[in-house]
């Protein structure tokens, strides 16, 4: 027996979730018609289930992906999941880290960096005029084309991002005073000039194109799912209204009318 009714707890939850056998279901329904306390208990628990239905977790940018460490294929030690989201990382960042990010962002705005990818590799200009730039200064720790592509992909936290499992490698940044020019790709260890650079530029472009196509496909899938959900909801609403109309003849017209009004109000508020 439950605290508030004559029905056993186990039978009641089976009935609530539509898993009671026919005999149990009929027994409960017959009893509830003659026992106001049990009918109230069943109605109350159904209301709780209705409330639970409306409770959704806050949206979270997940889009997790396995990032395998290719240097350590024989073990799982190098495996990790790509970060959840840039905002999640920011929230976990200590105050001094946030301050550092703010300073760097401000510096970037002031310095007005300009990035060009061309035959000679990737060129980063920092300054206000071209006349102030100097081609002589280079950065020695520039990444190879593959590494750059990897880092570009790894920094993309969009759930629909490039699904290639890649290894993130930090991109070398050309720091310096205003007017300073940093050239990536010319003196980098492992980087080869000329045709190879063309190849990796093409590679990067190809990856970006593929990524965009994948994002488009993901968007289409999401839209289809959303449309399906809306369709299902509309069907459920229609079925509910039809059921209410059929109840109109059962005698308690006023109660049904009020419930219908509530339901129509709910639909109109969506």
């Amino acid at each position: 027996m439950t605290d508030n009714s004559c029905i056993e707890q186990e039978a009641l939850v089976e009935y609530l979730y539509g898993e009671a056998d026919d005999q149990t279901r009929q027994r409960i329904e017959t009893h509830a018609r003659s026992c106001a306390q049990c009918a109230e208990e069943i109605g109350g628990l159904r209301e709780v289930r209705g409330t639970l239905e409306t409770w959704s977790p806050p949206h979270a940018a997940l889009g997790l992906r396995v990032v395998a460490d290719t240097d350590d294929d024989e073990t799982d030690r190098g495996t990790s999941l790509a970060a959840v989201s840039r905002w999640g990382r920011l929230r976990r960042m200590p105050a001094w880290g946030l301050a550092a990010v703010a300073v760097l962002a401000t510096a970037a705005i002031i310095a007005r960096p300009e990035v060009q990818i061309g035959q000679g590799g990737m060129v980063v200009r920092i300054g206000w005029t071209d006349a102030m730039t100097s081609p002589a200064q280079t950065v020695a720790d520039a990444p190879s084309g593959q590494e750059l592509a990897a880092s570009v992909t790894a920094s993309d936290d969009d759930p629909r991002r490039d699904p290639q499992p890649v290894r993130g490698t930090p991109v070398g940044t050309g720091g310096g005073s205003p007017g300073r020019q940093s050239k990536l790709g010319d003196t980098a260890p492992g980087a080869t000039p000329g045709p190879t650079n063309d190849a990796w530029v093409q590679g990067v472009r190809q990856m970006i194109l593929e990524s965009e196509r994948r994002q488009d496909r993901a968007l289409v899938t999401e839209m289809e799912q959303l449309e399906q959900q809306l369709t299902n909801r509309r069907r459920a609403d229609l079925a509910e209204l039809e059921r209410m109309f059929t109840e109109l003849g059962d005698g308690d017209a006023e109660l049904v009318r009020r419930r219908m009004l509530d339901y129509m109000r709910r639909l109109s508020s969506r």
Partner: protein
Amino acid sequence: MQRTDEELVALATAGDSESFNQLVGRWERQIYALAYRVLGREEEARDICQETLLRAFRGIKGFKGQAKFSSWLYRIALNLCRDWMRRERRTAIMTPLDTDGEPSLPDLSVDTAEEQTVRRDLGRLMTEAMATLSEEQRTTVVLKEYHGLTFQEIADLQGSPLSTVKTRLYQGLSMLRRQLQRKGVHGAAAISAVPATSLMARSHRKVVNLDR
């Protein structure tokens, strides 16, 4: 044709990480939602989701298909949730409310913002109500209500008799009913039906009575 979980697990076990990524895409939201509803904390739920999937990836070769893949993930996630709760020495954590304990209800005029406010407040009320349940009751309610597990699957996950699971579910629902009534949420199934302005006006009177 879309592959089943079992097919993807077989491929992932053979070393195909892209197949595992498909499983991740299929289940990460469910795992996050499970952890969020059990813990009531967004950030921790996300961490547990990530850790669950990472552990699953590392242990995929040991998964012999003795249970559904989703049940296996749920088990890992629930163990992590339990570890977290024990570590924090509390059964449920909630976002602190305003000083008077009532959800903050700013006077917004834009419908969508109002709806968001109503939903956020409902979320807070639900999180508070869920926090009054025992860990087992809360987990049972969440697995049954939101993940559609059978009573037997829940019993297997919790290592409990079937009758215990049903009793926990009944007790959990009854406790939630009392808590929601105490907070003035009656007929809450219709909470989404009530125009936000109406709900807000009632809430400002510290009563959210949704029964006509």
